[in-house]
């Protein structure tokens, strides 16, 4: 979680340091410790960066099975490349970029397997874990749960690009714009304006519902 103040207009001036700065500053040192055999450092890297990898995978809307395998491949390869990563402090971007490439390979192989270029394939969503089921698990007060459900539903109904961008931005801790750029192949400079438009679009939908 982001500690302290909420983001401000400073975003546009400092896109590279946005969010999770404390956690991210440690990444380079953690990678070095993991290379030197420190299992606790590896654990910290997994805990700190797994949500980013997962968010990039989810933003590409693969099936659960494909998404799980991409996530696994990314971490296996990270372990393999640990010593060789040129800029250890940018391990988050490395992971996000690797996740994106593997997602695109899955999408490409599905398209190649299917003679019909069926766009439905790209829009398959999770079969296992519906928001409703997860909500039952969640120990949230009913009103909070309802609010979250509505928020999620409106988010899911945004256009592809907004949904994809916001899904990565909502990783915890918040990813840097460089990581978002690596995970989605969007220029760093266009993330801020897109984020603003997407969040305001979402807010407009929620306002229309009277949900928040």
């Amino acid at each position, binding site marked *: 979680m982001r500690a302290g103040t*909420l983001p401000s207009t400073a975003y546009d001036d400092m896109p590279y340091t946005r969010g999770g700065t404390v956690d991210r500053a440690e990444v380079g040192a953690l990678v070095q410790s993991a290379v030197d055999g420190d299992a606790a450092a590896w654990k910290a890297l997994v805990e700190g960066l797994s949500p980013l990898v997962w968010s990039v995978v989810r933003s590409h809307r693969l099936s659960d099975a494909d998404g799980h395998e991409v996530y696994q491949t990314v971490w296996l390869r990270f372990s*393999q490349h640990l010593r060789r990563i040129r800029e250890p402090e940018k391990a988050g971007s490395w992971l996000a970029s690797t996740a994106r490439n593997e997602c695109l390979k899955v999408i490409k192989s599905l398209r190649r397997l299917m003679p019909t270029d069926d766009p439905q394939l790209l829009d398959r969503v999770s079969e296992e874990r519906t928001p409703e089921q*997860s909500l039952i698990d969640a120990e949230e007060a009913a009103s909070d749960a309802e609010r979250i459900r509505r928020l999620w539903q409106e988010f899911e109904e945004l256009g592809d690009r907004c949904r994809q961008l916001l899904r990565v931005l909502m990783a915890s801790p*918040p990813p840097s714009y460089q990581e978002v750029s690596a995970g989605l192949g969007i220029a760093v400079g266009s993330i801020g304006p897109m984020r603003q438009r997407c969040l305001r679009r979402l807010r407009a939908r929620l306002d229309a519902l009277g949900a928040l």
Partner: protein
Amino acid sequence: MHDDGLDAFDAFGQDPLNEEEFAEQEGELDDGAGEFEDGLLEEELRQAAAILDPVPAELLQFAMDAYALYDLDARLAELTFDSLVDAIPIRGVTDAPRMLTFTAGELSIDVEVTSEGLMGQVMPPQPAGIEVLGGPQVLHPTTLTADAMGRFTSAAPPTGPFALRLRAGGEVVVTEWLRA
């Protein structure tokens, strides 16, 4: 979005303001209060994601365990050709095998993955012992042998991520992890 190839995705966001989704003007773009609200909404989304779409626990565990496969002794053979990315698809051929080449210095390993299994060739040709690694949860990897001509086959196609670990000419080489 539905063009062929990765390039279509690489074009993502190059010119977002021309996209339909961003076509309309939405009044004032920058004011401090709006930015603050944006931050609040993003934070709410972050909380919603943590509840509704968290990293599955078994995947988190998988990533923790992947550290055990960190292989100090092995030389890494990098993926230098992947038919999925580097080859031009032939129209009408929908079950083309996946052709992969891994390279470590002068040594290369060609692998062909089909639904029937896996075929490979070590170059330069030489005998080799090969393990098909399948992630930290696979305790006993399949072992194969490359003959004097460097050829090897497996009747079982890899499921999920895999890597090949070769012992050839007194050294150990491991291929990059890949999802077949």
